């Protein structure tokens, strides 16, 4: 019996199927919000309010011809997008969606470090996939991915440790459950910095330099077609959901929230999804209201502003944890 339950949790809820559906839904919502901010209607034909549009796009790409460039490094070209996708879905499994993570054993002390490492691995796989396509635009796009994530990984890690300091634990479940007062209230500066570095890590405006199509055409996706492109897109969408989910766990109290009746797991999942959607709205809003910066501007902003602020944030947090929070909590 236990085995069936475990398989259900891995494959359906809150595992693979749930993550996939949530990703497609977030993709739809992003597009709809972007459209409304830009005074457009957005997807409207596939399904009610166009809600099936991301799925339709995904299926359409799967049916397209799959072309492999002659000079591509075939193995990496083929498998990097798939592996990147799997890594992201696997990383999602560590996040306690309905109060506990997918595998109860996986929620060990220190899983925060593991999933932040997964983000890095996924980005590195995306870099590999662009590099393997042997296309100058793909190469430039990949190089930009690498440059940018080298710059923003450190601030992300540093700021990501802030909640861990406050909670006194490196386990995501522990951090989430320790938030009787959400850390967005206790450490708003860290929240802002985390959103900014997440935005850069996820390559969204104003940091979407690797996707600057007026400069590098399709970036690392230039040579990809068909199913592989579909998985590259999906990986990106899962990354966005994952980033939002991480923000929810670290700063918004995870899946905690009032339970009214029935299954607590249902309410926990509901709160989690609602918070996640709120974060997606915020990131999409940021995407819409800024222009894309230049690579040198992004890098200098990173080294001159973001990195020092991240260090300061950490120092401030330690000070607060030592002297201020004991009085409040």
């Amino acid at each position, binding site marked *: 019996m236990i085995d069936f339950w475990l398989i259900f949790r891995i494959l359906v809820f809150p595992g693979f199927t749930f993550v996939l559906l949530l990703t497609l839904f977030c993709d739809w919502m992003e597009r709809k919000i972007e459209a409304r*901010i830009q*005074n*457009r*209607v*957005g997807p409207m034909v596939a399904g009610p309010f166009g809600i099936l549009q991301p799925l339709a796009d995904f299926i359409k790409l799967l049916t397209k011809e799959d072309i492999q460039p002659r000079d591509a490094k075939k193995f990496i070209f083929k498998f990097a997008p798939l592996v990147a996708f799997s890594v992201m879905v696997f990383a999602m499994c560590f996040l306690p969606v309905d109060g506990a993570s997918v595998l109860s054993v996986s929620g060990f002390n220190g899983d925060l470090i593991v999933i932040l490492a997964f983000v890095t691995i996924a980005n590195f796989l995306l870099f590999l996939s662009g590099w393997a396509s042997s296309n100058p635009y793909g190469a430039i796009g990949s190089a930009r991915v690498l440059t940018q994530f080298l710059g923003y990984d450190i601030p992300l890690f540093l700021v990501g440790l802030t909640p861990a300091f406050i909670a006194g634990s490196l386990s995501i479940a522990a951090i989430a459950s320790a938030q009787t007062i959400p850390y967005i209230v206790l450490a708003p500066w860290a929240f802002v910095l985390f959103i900014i570095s997440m935005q850069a890590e996820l390559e969204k405006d104003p940091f979407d330099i690797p996707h600057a199509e007026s400069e590098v055409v399709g970036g690392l996706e230039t040579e990809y077609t068909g199913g592989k492109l579909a998985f590259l897109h999906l990986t990106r969408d899962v990354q966005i959901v994952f980033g939002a989910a991480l923000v929810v766990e670290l700063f918004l109290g995870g899946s905690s929230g009032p339970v009214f009746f029935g299954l607590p797991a249902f309410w926990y999942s509901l709160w989690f999804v609602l918070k996640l959607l709120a974060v997606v709205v915020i990131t999409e*809003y940021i995407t819409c209201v800024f222009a894309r910066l230049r690579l040198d501007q992004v890098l200098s902003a990173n080294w001159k502003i973001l990195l020092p602020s991240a260090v300061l944030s950490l120092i401030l947090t330690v000070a607060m944890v030592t002297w201020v929070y004991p009085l409040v909590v």
Partner: protein
Amino acid sequence: MSKKTRIPPMLKRAVSHIFTKPVTTKYPFVKPTLPADFRGQQVFDINLCVSCGLCSRDCPAKAIEMVVIDGKRRPQFKLDSCIFCYQCAESCPRNAIKSSVFYELATTDKSSLVLKPQASVERRASPQ
């Protein structure tokens, strides 16, 4: 980065637009209303035609060919070459060529874009 105290205007505008109605025209579900003298597909009235051939001579795109129907020369419009400038209507001494607001001319069958002069030219049926 320069320090500006004013808030970038886009921040506010973006929020306010979420709550306003989109401006998108929902074509093809909702068709736009066109001005009455829109230059769409030509309507040719064979009863007014005097077979002078001026329309064919003046057509900048050479889209009008004079063909013999019942022993008389009549214009045949090739809409795939037509640039819808309506010089033909202007050149016609008898006003036999008029404009219509019919504009959905996309088709997979090129031959359906040739308007054969008939007693009364119907609007081209939309392709099935």
